[in-house]
């Protein structure tokens, strides 16, 4: 197997054709191969998100992580950028869809592309992964413990956030969901609700739920890391993308 890869920062066209920063990681070799858009978590376009992006290249995909905070804080450190974006109300859903769409188009434009693109997001990015999959032509989506896909956000939140219940009938691709049974947002009950809605609408999905795991169990640099859940989750992701992205 060829385990060489390259990674660099590039500029892509995001929502409304605005130039945004993105981190692109690509395997060696000529392809053809699928692509993966990585949606970073709310703490930002950080080292951990870039490590995840490189891992998808190691798995054989062209992978890209758009910096969702490019507009608010160009060039800033990830934590400062996240704080600035948060203070300004967070990432609007329409802009997220445009940025992920731009990232997916960039992947499809690569000479190595087989035309298939998946999306994955963690934490707030899990919700955004589902949001993208309800609004864009993608081939596979992964939701890692995204809160408020179902459930009701408190109305007094400064960050404008809604659940995605009314959008789920428009889901355009298979969904892999990975959740911790000790998580409160999304709670097991909210995951049940999501699964029921997908069943009712005939949407292809595969959910895995882990005991002894709560939120952010993939995060290797946080106390929430759970090695058994994360290892199994990575295997599920690899199998899911292999099945749907032709990897």
């Amino acid at each position, binding site marked *: 197997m060829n385990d060489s890869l390259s990674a660099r920062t590039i500029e892509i066209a995001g929502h409304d054709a605005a130039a945004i920063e993105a981190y692109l990681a690509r395997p060696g070799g000529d392809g053809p191969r699928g692509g993966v858009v990585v949606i970073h*978590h*709310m*703490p930002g376009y950080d080292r951990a998100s870039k490590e995840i992006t490189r891992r998808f290249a190691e798995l054989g995909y062209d992978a890209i992580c758009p910096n969702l905070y490019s507009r*608010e*804080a160009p060039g*800033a*450190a990830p*934590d*400062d*950028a*996240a*704080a*600035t974006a*948060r*203070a300004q109300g*967070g990432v609007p859903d329409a802009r997220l869809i445009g940025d992920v769409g731009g990232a997916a188009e960039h992947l499809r434009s690569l000479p190595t592309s087989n035309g298939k693109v998946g999306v994955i997001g963690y*934490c*707030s990015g899990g919700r955004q992964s589902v949001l993208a999959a309800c609004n864009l032509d993608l081939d596979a989506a992964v939701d890692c*413990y995204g*809160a*408020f896909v179902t459930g009701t*956000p*408190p109305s*007094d*939140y*400064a*960050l404008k*956030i809604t659940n995605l219940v009314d959008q789920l009938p428009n889901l355009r691709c298979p969904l892999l969901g990975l959740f911790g049974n000790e*998580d*409160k*947002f*999304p709670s097991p009950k909210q995951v049940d609700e999501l699964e029921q809605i997908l069943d009712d609408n005939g949407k292809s999905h595969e959910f895995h739920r882990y005991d002894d795991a*709560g*939120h*952010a169990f993939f995060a290797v640099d*946080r*106390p*929430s890391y759970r090695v058994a859940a994360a290892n199994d989750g990575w295997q599920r992701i690899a199998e899911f993308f292999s099945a749907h992205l032709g990897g």
Partner: protein
Amino acid sequence: MCTYATIAAPLDGSAKGPNGSWFHVTDASVYFDHPVHAMAEHTLNIDFAAPADGPTARVAVELTAASARELVTAIQAALASAPAELTA
């Protein structure tokens, strides 16, 4: 989880920030969510900021919930200990 909750407060004061420089603080963001550095799943986070000076004009604090409550109590005690005519 990402709580999404953010409480904003206008401030007038100063903080010692990047490169050891003092700057005029105009805003605070207060939220209970994932920390960047603290070894806890969630913390009470305060960003003392000057948005007009850009994203780096920020002093960030991440406190456990118990620590945040201790801080609130300490701030209130300190204010209460001063003569009222000074803190009006």
